[in-house]
């Protein structure tokens, strides 16, 4: 007999990703949720498993010139270029308010070179009220840094090792789906100190105006996100979960509702991040928490019991991919 629903307290949604314990597995993805405060009309931030901030650099960053976004079938391309207020303003103006609101805050950080990453992590280390650091080694929309670290396992390893030494907080490394060998990048991040891997960031894409024959984004290329990438992301989570068992994974890619969450959990994600859907429906993240709560309650299941259910049903294709 399965455990009775009444035995499931609020802890049924709780997930433990190594040193990071979350009240539920629904987070919001960096770059799609501002600093969280933009969403307080729509979401009770304390209900979320966590929120990942806009990517933070040590100094404020202006980002790319417009046009920065372009709609595509079932998704969008963006090349925002990591516009952000900088670590100091975040710590002074945003973080105290987020703490008041009871948000579980994960600071997403990026830099041009290793020293930049270390500097911003060190600045954040002194701040109180951060649950974890998420290392962005996968942004495709900046000329330096970002994806360049994620696309080479040796560069990933070197950076993660240095950042690991700079923080006592749980360390999440956000992987690039554009990496030539995702599993080797994942392994490199894990072996050098990542507590959790989040995947995936956006896929490098492009859209061209047929009238002018010019790219629709000023940066030229952009990152593709939204439901269009979901099957790609599910496949990648599945492959990494099989290749690196017992590594806590956060699944990201086109999540819009409960069924998408269940799919990622089955593929081996321990938690998920809701991304582009926040733009079209700012209340979606909290609604997914509600849906998951109702689902677990009705079925008498914990979230933990939903993780990795598809992994035993291996496929030849996935195994081949897992071998890299």
């Amino acid at each position, binding site marked *: 007999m399965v455990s009775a629903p009444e035995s499931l307290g609020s802890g049924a949604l709780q997930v433990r990703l190594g040193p990071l314990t979350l009240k539920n597995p629904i987070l919001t993805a960096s*770059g*799609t*949720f*501002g600093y969280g405060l*933009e*969403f307080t*009309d729509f979401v009770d931030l304390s209900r979320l498993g966590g929120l990942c901030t*806009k990517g933070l650099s040590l100094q404020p960053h*202006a*980002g790319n*010139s*417009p*046009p*920065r*976004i*372009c*709609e*595509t*079938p*079932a*998704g*969008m391309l*963006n090349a*925002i270029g990591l*516009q952000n207020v900088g670590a100091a303003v975040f710590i002074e103006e945003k973080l105290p308010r987020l703490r008041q609101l009871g948000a579980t805050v994960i600071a997403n950080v990026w830099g041009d070179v290793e020293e930049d990453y270390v500097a911003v992590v060190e600045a954040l280390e002194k701040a109180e009220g951060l649950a974890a650091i998420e290392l962005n080694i996968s942004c495709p929309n900046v000329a330096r840094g970002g994806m360049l670290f994620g696309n080479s396992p040796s560069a990933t390893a070197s950076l993660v090792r240095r950042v690991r030494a700079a923080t006592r907080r749980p360390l999440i490394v956000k992987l690039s789906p554009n990496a030539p060998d995702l599993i080797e990048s994942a392994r490199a991040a894990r072996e050098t100190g990542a507590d959790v891997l989040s995947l995936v960031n956006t896929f490098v894409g492009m859209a061209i105006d047929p009238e002018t024959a010019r790219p629709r984004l000023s940066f030229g290329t952009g990152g593709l996100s*939204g*439901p*269009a990438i979901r099957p790609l992301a599910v496949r990648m989570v599945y492959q990494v979960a099989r290749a690196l068992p017992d590594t806590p994974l956060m699944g990201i890619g086109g999540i819009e509702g409960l069924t998408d969450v269940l799919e990622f959990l089955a593929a081996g994600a321990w938690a998920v991040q809701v991304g582009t859907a*926040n*733009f*079209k429906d*700012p209340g979606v993240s909290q609604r997914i928490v509600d849906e998951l709560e109702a689902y677990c309650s009705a079925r008498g299941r914990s979230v933990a019991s939903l993780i990795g259910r598809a992994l035993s049903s291996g496929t030849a294709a996935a195994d081949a991919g897992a071998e890299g």
Partner: protein
Amino acid sequence: MLEIPGRVRPYLRRAYSVADAEPSSGEVEFLVKTIGPGTAALENLAEGSEARLLGPLGNAFRTDGLSEGARVAIVAGGIGAAPFPLLLKALATRSIVADFYLGGRSAREIALASRFVGLTAGKMILTTDDGSAGEKGFVTGAFARRAADGGYARAYACGPMPMFAALAPIVAGLGLAAEFSTEAAMGCGFGACLGCVLPGANNTYIVSCTTGPILAPEVVRW
């Protein structure tokens, strides 16, 4: 084989100015020009269909600081006329007279002029690039020729970026305070995606949806 159209296109919401609103009846009017899949989906909605609305978002035209009987100019390019019915009504309640300049490439692009008949005690000046209706030429030129003697206390404008780029130095030269309702592709409308920026001073970007979309011309690098 059945298809529910519009499931993946458009994916994002679309940002529109409120053209007019009647609080007592709960009606809100949008003036929409069909240019792509998003606007086409709206055009093809059957009467009585449900649409989801997030708003109001962003700022609004300001009418404070204008004394009763003052004269203002409104400069609109094509579908840029969309936000002005509501402003004209607000100005009329305070006996502020607006001259309404509306321009487009051809007569078809200024067909919206009929929507504005009777909304202002001021003049209506129409222009087309091809001369198929109104004065031949750009609306900015028609405005510039009259503005020096217009006695305007303020200018309001909405239209495409080239119109703003032409208009900004004209109002600056006149020393005329102005409010431009800017257009940018918006991903979210509430400051999260940072997709709708306009270039501002000192190599910074202005987030159009939350700082604007109505901006003083001098803060934007057109």
